[in-house]
């Protein structure tokens, strides 16, 4: 009995020891610890008079999370992001696939999109506020714009980069148009599509934050802006962290789905 407990204890100690000897872990911990300690010290010795220290932020987190509308902000921002993102994904995939497969459509339509593409999505904000009847629609439209072009370009690139020999092989094996589409085009373009989707979800979060700062009544961007207006620096930092976590979680979900959908890409 005694020996089993000891060996369990020893095993655990062994595992901790090995983790500490792993340079990736102890050096990583060292880096992050240094970052926070420098930040804290800069605050203590008065170098940073405006920015709150990590300890102040950590103490304020529960109180910030209890404030009215914090969780509703999460819901509002996520809804805007996902509505715009899904609309963009549907449109961009449909347009990308049709342009990738119909040459005339592409020759006629692509140059126009190439001219619209370099206009930053946020530059559309004032026009969108004027044009759309409600702020909600404005923000969904902006996230749509932000997500549309990366997805569209990547779908098109994915179709372009399919090896010609695959298509020829499918043809000579007697594939129908439908088989060619589902068995060659779709799997060929899928990895590139997911690259586009994960770039797009990052951009939608950036766009929605700016749009909310400019014109919303609720949302994580509005929360941060509100904290700025009431000079609550802790609130600003908590808002930023929440936005970062939201963006990271969305990207994580996206790449998880991407890995699931293209299992043959695992080695890359």
């Amino acid at each position, binding site marked *: 009995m005694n020996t089993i407990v000891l060996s369990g204890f020893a095993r655990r100690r062994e595992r901790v020891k090995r983790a500490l000897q792993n340079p990736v872990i102890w050096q990583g911990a060292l*880096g992050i610890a240094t970052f926070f300690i420098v930040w804290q010290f800069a605050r203590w010795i008065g170098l940073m008079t405006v920015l709150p220290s990590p300890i102040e932020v950590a103490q304020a987190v529960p109180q910030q999370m209890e404030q009215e509308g914090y969780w509703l902000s999460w819901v509002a921002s996520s809804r805007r992001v996902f509505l715009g993102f899904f609309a963009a994904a549907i449109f961009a995939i449909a347009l990308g696939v049709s342009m990738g497969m119909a040459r005339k459509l592409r020759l*006629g339509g692509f140059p126009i999109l190439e001219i619209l593409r370099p206009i930053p999505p946020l530059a559309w904000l*004032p026009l969108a506020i004027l044009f759309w009847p409600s702020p909600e629609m404005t923000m969904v439209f902006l996230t749509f714009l932000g997500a549309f072009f990366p997805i569209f370009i990547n779908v098109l690139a994915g179709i372009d980069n399919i090896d010609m020999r695959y298509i020829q092989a499918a043809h000579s094996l007697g594939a129908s148009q439908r088989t060619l589409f589902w068995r060659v085009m779709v799997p060929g373009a899928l990895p590139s599509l997911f690259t586009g989707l994960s770039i797009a979800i990052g951009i939608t979060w950036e766009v929605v934050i700016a749009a909310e700062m400019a014109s919303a009544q609720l949302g994580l961007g509005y929360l941060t802006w509100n904290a700025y207006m009431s000079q609550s620096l802790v609130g600003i930092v908590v808002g930023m962290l929440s936005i970062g976590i939201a963006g990271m979680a969305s990207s994580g979900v996206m790449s998880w789905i991407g890995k699931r959908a293209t299992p043959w890409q695992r080695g890359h």
Partner: protein
Amino acid sequence: MQNVAEITRTAKPGVKPQLVADVVREAHDTHDPYDERLRQSPDWPVAPGDWGGRIYRAVSLPRLRYALLGFALFFGLWYLLTAVVVPPRFHFIPDPVYLFGQWISKEPQYGISIFTPEYYEHIKVSVIRVYIAFAISVGIGAPLGIVLGWSSFGRNTLFPIVEMLRPIPPLAWVPLAVLTFPETEMAVIFVTLLASFFATVLNTYLGVRSIPDTYFRAAACLGYGRVDVLRRVVVPGALPFIFTGLQIAMGVAWFSLVGGELIAGTSGLGYLILDGYTQLALPNIFIGMITLGVLGWASSALIRKVGKAMMAWHVKGQGEAA
């Protein structure tokens, strides 16, 4: 010219290969219908000095025809929806004739056209901001990326910090930047450089990691010191990725600049758009948007050009998008 072999083969079957120049001259001299068809193919070399032929060729390309058709449809629809039948809320969009007329007018209604100094003032302010931010982010980001890729201690300690800060979108930094920096100008530049900084760091890092280990071993065998390895192996090896990173960095710099100027600026093209919104000067909104698009596109094209010139050995572009 890759079609040389094809020309000599197909132009005169059965005849032994001739000099390409002879074939070209002959086909221009004779009026054989077979040659005529060949001459109209896009691969056929145009005789030097034959400008008419060159223009005819350019115009008759299907690429151009369809592009023109697309543009005609786009502008036609725009005109139709804003000048002929105006559905509700479309009155906020100026019709293209009025818009471009204002743009090149000597006395624009809202004070912005290619003849007013204010227009160039806004352009100058925005361009200077973007390029300062870009220079700072590359100046710090590229060396940091090299450290991350090259030294395992540097990677283990610094990479978690970079990964911790990277998910926060640049525009979420606006309130903090405005409060922290003494001047708005610095805050806008800071917001502009954040995203391009992370794009540069990440792509430089990936570039260094993509260099095969054998190169480092070969360099060590040849007695290279650390400085030589940096100059001859690490930098050239990472260059293709670095340039991909710079292109992304330029794009996101313009993106964030607009956000920064909209929220916190008092000048620049983003501010021009916002001002157009508050004054309801609709043409100015569009002029600002299109100018931003052109400048952003031109900056990326410039980087592509520099990259191509610097990497003559690198045939096909490769890299990773951030």
